[in-house]
C-alpha cells in the first residue's frame, strides 16, 4: 500500500467516526468512552462509584473538594478524576491504598470545623458527609482545638441558623465549601441572590447583602447542598428521611412534566416533600419552586372533604350518593326539557388523561353535547378545527434539542414565569456552547438576561415583528430571491421600515435576528403565552407560518407554541374541545359509534349562551372560571343564570361558591395518572397517598355518574386505557402551509384615558389557581400586586408595597405596587393566582390589549 493510499484510508476512517473514542483501564476493567470524557464519568459507566462533594453532573467541574482522587499510572501525584480527561491507554486505580489515604485526609480536613449537629440536623440520613465519613473517614478526631463558629448579626436561633429567604435557612458552620449552591445559582439559574464572601477558611456563603434568596429555583439549592448548611422550612424538623417512602411522579403545575419524587409517610397519609428525579431529557434534575413546593396543596387543611349540596341557599355537606342523585335528577330534567346540548362542560388542563377522556366521553355520549372545553384563561378562542394556530400548538418539540441549538428565539414568552424548565435549558445552551439567543416580547423580561439581543415591541403588534423579520431577510438578501418576492406582496405593510416603525423595533435588530435564522444550522423557535393569549392568535400564526416557510425552520430545528399546563397537550389530543381536529373526531366517532353533530361552543361562547339563558347546565371539573376567565362580571352573570351547576375541585373557590353541587376532587398525588408534556411525551405519575377525605379522581366521578345515567363509559380500566392510547396515537396534524399567507399587521390601538397595557401573568412562584394554598409558595408571594417599572413608580410617587389603584373601562382594584427589575415601559403586570384579588374584573373579552390606568391611593 503506497503512502498516498494509506493517508486516504486514514482520512476516511477518521471522517467516518464522528467522535474519537479512547479506551482506558479502571481498577483492572477496560472501558471505551468518547474523547473529552472525564475519568469520573468513565468510572461511572463501569459502575464504579467515586465519592465527590463538589462535583455535579450539570455544572462545570470545580476540583475544589479533592475527594474524587484517583491514582493514575505514571503520574506521580494523585489526580482529581472529575477534572482529568480520560486518555487512551490510561491506567487508573480508584481504590488503592494511596487513594484511600488521600480520601481519609480530605474527610479529616472537612470535619475539623464541622459541628456535630447530626442528631438534630435535617440532612441526617441523606447527608453526603455522613455517608462518606462512614465509608472513607477516620474513626477518631485528632483536632483538639475549638471549632470555628460563624457568629455575628442575624444569628437568631439555636445552632447558629439564619434565615436567608422565605424558605431557606443557612447554617454557615456546616458549610464544607463545595460551592455548588453559588455555582448552580449563578450558572444554571442566572440568579444573584447568593454569594461567597471573605476568603480562606472563613469563606462564608450567604445571601447577597440586603437581599433574600427567593428566586424561582431556590429550592434546588437546598437539594444540592451535600450537608445541612442549606435547609428549607418545608422539611425542617418534620420527619427523618428514613421514615418516609418515595413515589415517582411528575409536576402538575407546568407543561414540562419535570420528574419528581414524593416523600410520603403512609400512616399519616401525608406527603412531606418533593425532590427531583433527574430526567436528562426533560429537567436535568432541576425543579422550579412551583414544582417542588406545589405538592403542599394535597395535605392542606382546607381541602374539601365531602360533597356539598346547596339547600335553601346554603351549601351543606352531603354524601356522595345524595350528591350523585341530585346531579342525575337535575341534568336529566334539563336533557328532557331543553335538550342535552344545553349542558356544557369545562375541565382543567392539569387533569390526567383518564379524567379528561372520561369527561369528554360522558358529555358527548350521555348528553350528545360538544359544548366542552379546557381553556379558561385564553381571552377568546375561535375554536375552528385544524386552525393554523392549533397546528402550531401541536408541533413536536424536544426539550433537549434546545441544548445544542445554535439559534434560539423566544417569542411572546416570559419564560421564567411560563416555562422555567425551558429557560434553564436555554441557559445551559449558553453556558456550554455559543448559540445566538434572541427574545421578542411586548415587555422586557428576566429571561432576556441570557439573550444576545432583546427586542421589545409595542403590545398588540406581535405579527408585525414576525413580518419585520421576514422583510428584513428579503431586504438583506438572506434567502433565495425567487422565494421571497411573493411574500412581500402578501404583507401589509410591505416594507421593513414601515413595519419596524409600526411595532416599535429597530430595523437593525430585525436584521440581526433574520441573519441568525438564515445562517443557523439548528434553530429553536419557541412561542409563548403572551402571544397565544391574544385575540389575534390566528393572524400571528399566519405570520409565523410565513417565517417558517421562508427560513425553512421546520427542516432545521423546531418551531412550536409551547403548551401551558401539565396536560394541555393531552387535553387537546384527546379532544377536550368543542371541535377537535378532524382526525381525532374521526377516531372518537369510530370508537364510540357516534359523535354529536351540532354547533359547538367554546368556554367563552358557552358563558355567552348562559347569559342569554340558552345553556342551562354546566359541569366544571377542576377549573376555576370565575377566577381565571376574563371579565369576571360576565362570567359570574352567566354562571348565576344556569339552572344547574356542578363544580369539582380540591378547595372551595369563587366558582364552587356558585355551585348547586360541589364535589371534592383528588389531587394528582392521590391517584395514578398519565400526563402528556409539551413534547408529546406520556408520563406516569404514581399514587403517593390515599385520596383525602371523600375526594375522588375525575375519572371515577365521571364513571360513577355515567353508570347512574345507565351508560357505563368503559367495561374495564384496560378498555379505558386502550381507548386513550388509540386516541393519543392519532397524533396531531402538523402540516404547515406550503404557500405564503396574507398577514395584515395591526397597529397598536392607543387609549389616552387608559395608557397602560396590562398583562395578566403567573407570579414566578405560582401557577393557576391552586398554588396559593401551598404554604411555602405563599411565603414567597401571598398576595396580588401590580408590577410596574421603576420610572413609572417614581413618576407616580409610589414606593414598593404602597397601594395603587388599577382601573380599566370595566373595573378597578387596589393592590400594592411592586417595583420591577425588568419592566421599563408603560406595561404593567398583575398575577392571576390570588383569589382575594379580582384581577379579571379589569379585563374585557373582545380586546386585543387590555388597557388600564394607574393612580396612587392617597392615605
Amino acid at each position, binding site marked *: 500500500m503506497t503512502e498516498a493510499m494509506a493517508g486516504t484510508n486514514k482520512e476516511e476512517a477518521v471522517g467516518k467516526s464522528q467522535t474519537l473514542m479512547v479506551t482506558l483501564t479502571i481498577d483492572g476493567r477496560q472501558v471505551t468512552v468518547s474523547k473529552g470524557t472525564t475519568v469520573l464519568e468513565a468510572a461511572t459507566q463501569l459502575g464504579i462509584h467515586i465519592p465527590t462533594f463538589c462535583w455535579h453532573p450539570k455544572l462545570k*467541574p*470545580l*476540583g*475544589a*473538594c*479533592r*475527594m474524587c*482522587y484517583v491514582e493514575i499510572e505514571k503520574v*506521580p*501525584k*494523585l489526580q*482529581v478524576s472529575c*477534572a482529568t*480527561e480520560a486518555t487512551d491507554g490510561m491506567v487508573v486505580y480508584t481504590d488503592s491504598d494511596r487513594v484511600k489515604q*488521600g480520601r481519609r*485526609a*480530605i474527610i*479529616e*480536613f*472537612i470535619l*475539623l*470545623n464541622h459541628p456535630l449537629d447530626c442528631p438534630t440536623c435535617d440532612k441526617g440520613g441523606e447527608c453526603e458527609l455522613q455517608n462518606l465519613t462512614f465509608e472513607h473517614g477516620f474513626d477518631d478526631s*485528632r*483536632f*483538639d*482545638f475549638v471549632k*470555628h463558629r460563624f457568629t455575628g448579626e442575624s444569628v437568631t436561633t439555636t445552632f447558629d441558623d439564619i434565615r436567608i429567604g422565605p424558605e431557606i435557612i443557612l447554617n454557615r458552620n456546616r458549610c*464544607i*465549601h463545595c*460551592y455548588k449552591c453559588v455555582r448552580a445559582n449563578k450558572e444554571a439559574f442566572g440568579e444573584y441572590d447568593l454569594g*461567597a464572601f*471573605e*476568603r*480562606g*477558611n*472563613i*469563606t462564608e456563603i450567604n445571601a447577597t447583602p440586603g437581599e433574600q434568596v427567593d428566586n424561582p429555583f431556590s429550592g434546588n439549592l437546598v437539594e444540592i447542598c451535600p450537608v445541612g448548611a442549606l435547609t428549607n422550612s418545608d422539611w425542617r424538623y418534620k420527619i427523618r428521611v428514613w421514615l418516609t417512602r418515595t413515589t415517582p411522579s411528575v409536576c402538575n403545575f407546568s407543561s414540562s412534566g419535570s420528574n419528581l419524587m414524593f416523600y410520603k409517610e403512609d400512616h399519616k397519609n401525608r406527603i412531606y416533600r418533593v425532590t427531583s428525579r433527574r430526567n436528562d431529557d426533560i429537567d436535568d434534575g432541576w425543579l422550579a419552586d412551583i414544582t417542588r413546593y406545589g405538592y403542599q396543596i394535597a395535605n392542606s387543611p382546607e381541602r374539601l372533604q365531602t360533597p356539598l349540596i346547596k339547600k335553601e341557599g346554603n351549601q351543606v355537606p352531603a354524601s356522595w350518593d345524595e350528591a350523585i342523585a341530585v346531579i342525575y335528577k337535575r341534568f336529566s330534567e334539563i336533557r328532557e326539557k331543553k335538550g342535552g346540548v344545553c349542558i356544557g362542560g369545562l375541565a382543567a388542563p392539569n387533569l390526567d388523561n383518564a379524567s379528561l377522556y372520561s369527561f369528554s366521553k360522558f358529555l358527548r355520549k350521555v348528553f350528545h353535547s360538544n359544548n366542552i372545553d379546557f381553556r379558561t384563561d385564553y381571552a377568546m378562542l375561535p375554536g375552528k378545527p385544524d386552525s393554523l394556530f392549533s397546528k402550531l400548538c401541536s408541533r413536536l418539540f424536544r426539550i433537549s434539542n434546545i441544548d445544542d441549538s445554535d439559534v434560539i428565539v423566544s417569542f411572546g414568552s416570559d419564560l421564567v414565569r411560563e416555562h422555567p424548565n425551558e429557560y434553564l435549558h436555554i441557559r445551559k445552551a449558553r453556558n456550554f456552547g455559543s448559540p445566538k439567543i434572541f427574545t421578542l416580547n411586548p415587555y422586557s423580561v428576566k429571561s432576556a438576561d441570557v439573550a444576545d439581543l432583546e427586542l421589545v415591541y409595542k403590545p398588540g403588534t406581535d405579527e408585525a415583528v414576525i413580518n419585520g423579520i421576514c422583510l428584513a431577510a428579503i431586504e438583506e438578501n438572506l434567502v433565495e430571491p425567487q422565494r421571497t418576492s411573493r411574500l412581500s406582496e402578501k404583507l401589509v405593510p410591505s416594507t421593513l421600515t414601515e413595519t419596524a416603525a409600526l411595532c416599535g423595533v429597530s430595523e437593525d435588530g430585525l436584521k440581526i435576528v433574520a441573519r441568525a435564522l438564515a445562517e443557523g444550522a439548528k434553530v429553536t423557535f419557541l412561542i409563548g403565552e403572551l402571544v397565544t393569549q391574544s385575540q389575534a392568535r390566528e393572524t400571528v400564526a399566519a405570520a409565523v407560518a410565513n417565517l417558517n416557510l421562508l427560513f425553512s425552520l421546520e427542516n432545521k430545528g423546531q418551531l412550536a407554541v409551547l403548551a401551558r399546563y401539565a396536560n394541555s397537550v393531552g387535553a387537546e389530543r384527546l379532544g377536550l374541545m368543542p371541535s377537535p381536529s378532524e382526525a381525532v373526531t374521526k377516531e372518537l366517532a369510530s370508537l364510540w359509534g357516534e359523535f354529536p353533530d351540532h354547533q359547538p361552543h367554546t368556554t367563552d361562547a358557552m358563558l355567552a349562551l348562559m347569559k342569554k339563558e340558552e345553556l342551562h347546565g354546566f359541569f366544571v371539573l377542576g377549573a376555576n372560571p370565575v377566577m381565571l376567565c376574563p371579565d369576571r362580571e360576565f362570567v359570574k352573570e352567566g354562571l348565576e343564570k344556569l339552572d344547574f351547576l356542578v363544580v369539582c375541585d380540591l378547595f372551595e373557590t369563587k366558582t364552587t361558591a356558585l355551585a348547586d353541587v360541589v364535589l371534592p376532587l383528588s389531587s394528582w398525588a392521590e391517584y395514578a395518572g398519565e400526563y402528556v408534556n409539551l413534547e408529546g411525551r406520556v408520563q406516569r405519575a404514581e399514587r403517593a397517598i390515599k385520596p383525602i377525605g371523600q375526594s375522588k379522581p375525575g375519572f371515577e366521578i365521571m364513571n360513577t355518574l355515567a353508570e347512574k345515567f345507565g351508560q357505563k363509559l368503559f367495561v374495564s380500566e384496560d378498555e379505558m386505557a386502550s381507548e386513550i392510547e388509540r386516541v393519543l396515537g392519532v397524533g396531531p396534524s402538523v402540516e404547515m402551509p406550503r404557500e405564503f399567507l396574507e398577514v395584515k399587521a395591526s397597529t397598536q390601538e392607543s387609549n389616552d384615558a387608559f395608557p397602560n397595557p396590562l398583562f395578566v401573568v403567573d407570579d414566578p412562584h405560582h401557577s393557576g389557581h391552586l398554588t396559593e394554598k401551598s404554604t411555602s409558595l405563599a411565603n414567597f408571594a401571598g398576595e396580588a400586586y401590580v408590577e410596574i417599572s421603576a420610572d413609572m413608580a417614581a413618576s407616580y410617587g409610589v414606593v414598593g408595597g404602597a397601594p395603587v389603584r388599577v382601573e380599566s373601562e370595566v373595573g378597578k382594584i387596589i393592590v400594592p405596587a411592586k417595583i420591577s427589575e425588568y419592566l421599563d415601559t408603560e406595561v404593567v403586570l398583575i398575577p392571576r393566582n390570588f383569589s382575594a384579588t379580582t384581577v379579571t374584573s379589569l379585563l374585557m373579552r373582545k380586546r386585543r390589549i387590555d388597557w388600564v390606568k394607574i393612580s396612587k391611593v392617597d392615605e
Partner: protein
Amino acid sequence: MFYSPVITNAAEVASSDRLHLFRYVEDPDQSKVEIFEAHGGYSAWKKALTGMSADEVREEVKKSGLRGRGGAGFPTGMKWGFIPKGSSKPRYLICNADESEPGTCKDRVLMERDPHAVIEGMAIAAYAIGCHQMFIYIRGEFNHCIDRINAAREEAYARGHLGKDIYGSGYDLDMVVHTGGGAYICGEETALLNSLEGKRGMSRIRPPFPAVEGLYACPTIVNNVETLATVPHIINRGADWYRSMGTEKSTGTKIFSLSGHVKRPGNYEVEMGFPLKKLIYDPAYGGGIRDNKKLKGVIPGGSSTPMLTPDMIDVDLDYESLADAGTMLGSGAVIVFHEETCIVWVALRLIRFYRHESCGKCTPCHEGTAWLEQIIRRIEQGLGQPGDIELIEEICGNILGRTVCPLGDAAVMPIQSAIKHWRDEWQYHIDNKKCLVKTNFEFQ
C-alpha cells in the same frame, strides 16, 4: 532621591557589559521617556516590530533560554509557543506585577525606577504572541509603582510607542493598567486571570491552560515583570549573548532580593550560578550577618522554598543547583536569619501568612493551613503536645501535591524543611515549653 531607599548594585551593573537590568536604576531621570530613549530604550521594540516577524521574536527568546522570573522558572519562549495557531480569538499578554512573595521586592525597583523598560518588554512579548491589548496587573499596595507605570504609559502613547499603527507598521497595541485588591493568591496565574475578570481571586483547575483558555476564555500569556524587562535586551544583543551568561540551563542574570539578618539587605542583579555564600557575605553584596552573629538558616527563593542550613549554603544560585540541594530558586528572594532566631517562630510567621492568603477553594489548603497554624502556634506558646511534630508532618503530606494551585505546596515546603533540619529544636520547644533561642528583635 528615590521613593524607596532600597540598596541596589546598579553601580556594578552600569560598569558591566553583561549585567543589564539595573544599569540605569540609580538614575532619577530614567523613568522619563526622553532619557529612556536616549539610553537606547524602545530600540528593541522598534527592531522587533519593524524588522522581525513574531515567530522570529519567539525563536530568539526561546533560544536565549530565558526562564520565568516570577518563581516557576518555565522557559519563556516555549510558553509563548503554546498559543494555539489558527485561533481567531483575541490574544492577551498580562504582566504579573503582583509581587507578594515574602522576601521579594525586586519588581518594584524596575517599575518605580525603569518603568519604560517594563512597558517595552511587554510590547515585544505582546507582538510575539499576536496580542493587541496587554494588561499589567499591579498589586494595589504599590501606589507609587502604579503612578509611575501610569505616567510612563501616557508618555509611551504620546511618543507613539503604543497606540495605533506603531512606527507605521500597521500594528496596534493598547495597554491597560489594572490594580489588585490585596491578595497574594492573585500572583498565581489562574487566580490572576479570575481577579482581572472581576471575580474572586480563586485559582482555576488546569486544563484548560491559560495559553489556550485564559483571560475571557481567550489565549493568554502571563509573564513576570523581570522576565519581560529582560526581553528587550535579548532582542537588542541576541540570544547568544544572553546564553553566554549564567549556566547552560539557567541562562542570563537574575535580580536577587536579599533581606533579613544581613548587613546590606537590598536587590542585587547577578549572573545565574552566582554563589549563594558570596551573595550573603561579600561586602559588595550582603556584607555578612548583622551584628556579626552566626548564620542559622537561609530561605533561598522566597518564603515558599525549603530552607537551607549553614552547611548547605555552598551552592550556586541557579535553578538546577538549588533543586539538587532540595530547594528551589523561586522568585530569588534570599531571606537570612541568624542564630538568635527561634525556628518555630519563623514557621509560625510563614504559616500564618499562607493561611491568611488561602483563597478557600480546595479543602486541603484552606482547612490544612489553618490547622497547621493552630498547632504551630500552640508549640510556639509553650503548649505543644507530644506527637505534634508527627501530626504536622502528616498534615503537610496531606496538603503537598493535593491542591489546585501551588499555594498549598508553598505553605508546607518551608514547614517541612524547618522540621527536617531543626527537629531537635521543635522537640525542645514541646518538651520544655519554651524557645531554644530567645527571639527578640528590636527595631532601632
